């Protein structure tokens, strides 16, 4: 793993709010900041509805963030928006305008996404060739059909499918195979960074292991960087270098993978870790678990306090009033909790 001092992806104060009704704002992601370095895998975990998928979608420009900046290779990816504002404010300076469509196209060459549900993320009317070849064609308009087919065959080979599959339709494949097609599609433009949005949660256990092994193999071969979104903490531990835990739009803990599992600090992380079912009867039955009462509270118009405070067993008066900042407790281990 090569680590430079400069992060490949830098996210600063990312916020994504959805307006629901007059006066109701759903804060899906609220003030999230993190760095992702080249060649590493960052896991993003949390319960459903905590904003992890929205964060991922903001990074691949599928959502327009409400505020905050996302830098990829030191370039702000939503810059054209600011840029245009800047141009309109300084009409005399004659700055060339960036074409937003072109900017998006260039960006998607480097950043790709693998989607959660292999059953709904592939167009049922397109053959594998069209699905995987679509991106290649977009970025290389002059590519010849033969060359394209050759590239697709190589890609299919890389993800463990055979070249006979090239003219088939998605419904002819099993779930694991479809996810492989989705991965081949993401790889087709030779990206540097891939957001994997729960790529294995819809698959069977034995197939999950196949896909994880493949993702790791591809990462080694192509020097890829992953943001791995999942709710399955054991898989995240297995694949990630760093883990970010989210709760209701806030990042509550950020640490190196080993640190997080050895020494979870935020009460939510502790509860999350202890509720994983362990496939070992002796441990599973003897282990003391922290069962969280209640459920995720609503992200609509949240109070400006610790959002976990209504389910936390260590709750103090201050938790209900002041929102804890994300502070570094030790090297590379940050927690947002008043306990520390």
């Amino acid at each position, binding site marked *: 793993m090569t680590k430079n001092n400069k992060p490949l992806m830098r996210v600063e104060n990312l916020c994504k709010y959805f307006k629901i009704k007059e006066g109701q704002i759903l804060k899906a992601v609220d003030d999230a900041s993190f760095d992702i370095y080249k060649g590493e895998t960052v896991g993003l975990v949390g*319960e459903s509805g905590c904003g992890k998928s929205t964060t991922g979608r903001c990074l691949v420009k599928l959502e327009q963030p409400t505020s905050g900046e996302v830098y990829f290779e030191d370039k702000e990816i939503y810059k054209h928006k600011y840029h245009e504002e800047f141009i309109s404010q300084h009409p005399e300076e004659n700055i060339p305008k960036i074409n937003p469509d072109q900017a998006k196209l260039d960006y998607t060459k480097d950043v790709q996404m693998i989607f959660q549900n292999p059953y709904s993320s592939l167009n049922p009317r397109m053959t594998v060739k069209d699905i995987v070849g679509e991106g290649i064609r977009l970025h290389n308009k002059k590519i010849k059909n033969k060359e394209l087919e050759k590239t697709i065959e190589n890609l299919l080979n890389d993800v463990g499918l055979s070249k006979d599959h090239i003219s088939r339709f998605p419904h002819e494949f099993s779930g694991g195979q479809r996810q492989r097609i989705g991965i081949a599609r993401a790889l087709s433009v030779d990206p540097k960074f891939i957001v994997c949005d729960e790529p294995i949660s819809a698959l069977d*256990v034995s*197939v999950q*292991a196949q896909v994880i092994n493949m993702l790791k193999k591809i990462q080694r071969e192509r020097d890829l960087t992953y943001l791995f979104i999942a709710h399955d903490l054991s898989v995240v531990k297995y694949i990630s270098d760093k883990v970010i835990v989210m709760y209701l739009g806030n990042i509550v803990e950020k640490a190196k993978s080993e640190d997080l599992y050895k020494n979870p600090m935020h009460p939510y992380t502790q509860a999350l870790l202890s509720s*994983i079912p362990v*496939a070992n009867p002796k441990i599973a039955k003897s282990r003391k678990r922290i069962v969280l009462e209640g459920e995720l509270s609503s992200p609509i118009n949240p109070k400006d306090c610790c959002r976990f405070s209504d389910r936390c067993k260590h709750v103090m008066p201050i938790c209900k009033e002041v929102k804890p900042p994300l502070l570094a407790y030790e090297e590379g281990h940050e927690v947002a909790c008043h306990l520390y």
Partner: protein
Amino acid sequence: MSDKKLIEIDNLEFSFNTYGGEVQAVRGVSFEVKEGEIVGIVGESGCGKSVTAQCLMKLNPEPPGFFKDGSIKYKGEEIITKSERQMRKIRGLEIGFVFQDPMTSLNPTMKIGKQIEEIFIERKMYSRSQMKEKAMEILKTVGISDSETRYNQYPHELSGGMKQRVMIAIALVAEPSVVIADEPTTSLDVTIEAQILDLLRKLKEDLGKSVILITHDLGVIAKLCDRVLVMYGGKIVERGTVDEIFYETRHPYTSGLLSSIAGLDKKRDDELSPILGTPPDLFSPPIGCPFAARCEHAMEICIEELPKEYKISEGHSTLCWLEHEQAPNVKLKAKSYEESDLL
């Protein structure tokens, strides 16, 4: 746990007629469920575990489905020959069913309370106020606070975990003696999953119910079950107590399943060992062992002939040629159980 057998299934075979031919979903399954125990059925999708469970309530549509062979006895009574009308006395009242997907199994146009009471309405068992009382009581049992409000809400107003609790409430309201839970936690978050699993355990411990738990998550099995049946290709390939299945694994498929989990005890650099290939096509199931094509220990006989069930101890048996006296002594890849970095 008493020794009274509630459900006895003997050599059950169930198939579906389709345009492509006959799909043999369940191919000779036998097991029993005693009073007050939790039996887990584990296997990949398409192995026949859900079809088996639905056979118990005759919920599979017939046609295209049909019983080919075997018998299902509930408290000594044969289920297969019962008419639809007779089955209505069993569904919900004797055997409760918790369906897999709480998001789609509830009726979106009916209030929660009405859906729970529905089982009594047709049978005219109680007055309206008695029914409401029953429904409120069961909502409290499954851990839904504020039952008065919930009673009058529609499914879309509840979260996933809540809906699953309502599903369990519907299954329990008529006090059945067996509850079949078909992947009750698959679509839920781990924290909610832990709550639901606790609830299922209480069913057994406090109310003395038998539970048949269908899942593909071995973690859930380890936590909850007394006995486990491992299904593959429409057959039970290994059965035993939880400890026997996890610590004295005898079937290569079970051991493959166990070693393909990315458990918390896996180190980052360990390669996961998946089971290569895909499950067999049940249109034309293999004549030999269904797992032979994916098994690393497969021998010639495995492809040619179906192994018989070898007994290892009382209650623990496996469907594998490796147990034959002439078979080579093979060491299955065992999962290492270290309690090292667990909480």
